């Protein structure tokens, strides 16, 4: 039952007023605090570097619309801003003036692959290889290398593995250290039914990028499986586990191999795992074991040198107390 309004006592009224006042102070205080906080914390980030580059390049293109260099810069800026269609429009403008501009043809190819238009992309890359093959430095032309690589990639996607292998080998003739081309070649060889060649390609690819790249290890495992080489397959799957950050599984698998036919690879793998776990002393131990088996092993030697251990290695811990200065 609510008390009659007329019966509300004076102290009660005061409390009600105090309550209203308190709520008002709280609301106003909170709002004021929020306003001050925002004003004090907020800094206008302004246009990003890419937006600045676009603005500058657009102004330059407006000023000199026939300058190929400024249009290339604009296209590059659009690409960085993830605006492939605008970049493509700039490339097309350049091609009207310079049909054989290889930078543009390569750029177009990449955009068209991204859009899924593989036929048009391949046409763009073929124009590059046609022009490059006549050049004086065709055998060392990085743009031709890129075109051959992407042609190989397109052909693998289209299931034309035989033609893909030809293109990838052309790319590798120009740059034998291209790990992407080596991996793709391995994939194509595997599809082509040549697991031995695939193993060679994957192993070469992993020589250049031994960590943080899982697919070659997985595919290497598949290739070894097709060759019925069980220890080798275990090594590859172990390294794939390591790559997928399952180090404990990887170590268990690799430790089963340190007396078998792939002991050097397994020991190197264990060293690499220890390194990524910052257990440098353990890594040194594994690498030294590699040198006991194969004293000229380049990977172990370079790893020991990386860990600050020379030809007469001694363990070095990750974070240790050292002697006085």
């Amino acid at each position, binding site marked *: *039952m609510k008390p009659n309004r007329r019966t509300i006592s004076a*102290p009660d009224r005061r409390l009600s007023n105090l309550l209203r006042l308190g709520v008002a102070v709280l609301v106003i205080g909170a709002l004021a605090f929020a306003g001050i*906080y925002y004003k004090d914390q907020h*800094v*206008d*980030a302004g246009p990003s*570097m890419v937006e600045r580059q676009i603005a500058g390049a657009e102004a330059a293109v407006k000023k000199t619309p026939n300058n190929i260099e400024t249009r290339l810069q604009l296209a590059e800026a659009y690409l960085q801003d993830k605006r492939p269609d605008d970049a493509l429009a700039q490339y097309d403008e350049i091609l009207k003036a310079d049909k054989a501009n290889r930078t543009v043809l390569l750029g177009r190819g990449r955009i068209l692959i991204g859009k899924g238009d593989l036929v048009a992309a391949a046409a763009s890359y073929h124009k590059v290889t046609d022009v490059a093959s006549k050049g004086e430095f065709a055998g060392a032309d990085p743009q031709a290398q890129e075109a051959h690589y992407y042609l190989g990639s397109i052909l693998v996607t289209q299931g034309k593995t035989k033609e893909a292998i030809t293109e990838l080998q052309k790319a590798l003739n120009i740059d034998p250290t291209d790990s992407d081309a080596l991996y793709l070649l391995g994939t194509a060889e595997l599809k082509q039914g040549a697991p031995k060649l695939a193993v060679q390609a994957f192993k070469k690819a992993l020589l250049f990028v031994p960590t943080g790249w899982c697919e070659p290890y997985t595919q290497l495992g598949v290739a070894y499986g097709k060759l019925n080489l069980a220890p080798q397959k275990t090594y590859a799957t172990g390294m794939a586990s390591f790559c997928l950050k399952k180090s404990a599984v990887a170590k268990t698998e690799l430790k089963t191999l340190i007396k078998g036919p792939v002991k050097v690879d397994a020991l190197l793998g264990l060293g690499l795992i220890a390194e990524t776990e*910052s257990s*440098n002393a353990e890594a040194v131990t594994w690498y030294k074991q590699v040198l006991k088996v194969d004293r000229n092993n380049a990977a172990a030697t370079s790893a020991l040198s990386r860990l600050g251990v020379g030809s007469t290695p001694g363990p070095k811990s990750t974070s240790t107390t050292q002697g006085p*200065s």
Partner: protein
Amino acid sequence: MTNVTNTPPPAPETRVTPGRSEGGVAGAAADAEMKNKKKKIAALVSLLVILALLFVWYLLNRKPLSELPGLGGTAMPHYQSSIYGSTKPLGVAVTASGDRIYVTSSDGDRLVKAFDRAGKLVGTLKPPNSTSTANLPMYVAINPTTQDVYVSDRQNGSIYIYDAKGTYLRTFVPKGNLGGKYAPLGLAFAPDGTLYVTDVRGSDAKNHRVLVFGADGTLLRSLGTPGQLNFPNGIAVGASGNVDVADSNNGRLVVFSPAGKMIATISPGVGEGDLGMPRGVAVDDSGKLLVVDTADHMVRIYSTDKVKPTPTYIGSFGTEGQLNGAFEYPNGVATDKRAHVYITDRENNRVQVWGY
């Protein structure tokens, strides 16, 4: 005649008088209502006190609320904004309030630029007229006792001193025997004004060291035995007095005790928290150690404490690139007391501001 009706006298009042009965219930209700109001007022007062405390904490610290004590232990900063206007910036220093940011340009005009919090250029720190045109400002630090700005010029073997407004005051003159000329690179101050300088004189790394000067410029000691440091770069002094030095070409960070003993390292390598090529170093007001790994295009964060000399890895931020939050060979790092991190993004010609 009086017509007297023979009606019985009214029975004594047994029925509850409306006034009295309602008054009793209403009184209890009013009491309950008042108690309720008192509770509400108490809650309100508590809220007002919390708000007031929050406000006072904020005015004293001016940090994001996410940095309230107990909240921001292992939080990683996020990208906030960039300051443009310097060319190939290397070193950066910032006032405690974050209102002045000093940046060295290692290319272009090769001067030190002063920016306000909004990234507006507010001044230029020029070397003295006597300096050769081949000046190359590298690192910059603010003396906490005078607020003067110190700029190292490795090429000229000098440290220039400016006031907070950027007016050239003098060139630092070391007192004591340095054993020849020095080539100052990294600069850091202890709270008492002791100056730490990484010295990369000569092409032979065996001469590389850290020089420690008192507030009056007297050489107090040198850190690092011959050959121990190889191009020591950025340097910072932690709250415990430990000195963190980016031993750049050895790919590691070296921690010296206040007495000058090498007590810990963060090693080079590919593991979590391992370093590639450390350059800038800073310790923020919460004791977190920040190391710029220029080759990996990121900043690594470690926690430090007085008991354990080896910093503990917390995490990294940044990646290679040109977008906001990406770096191209970052170099210097500085922190203000408002939970901001400033990193020179050398090849992107900007200073990135990250916050919590």
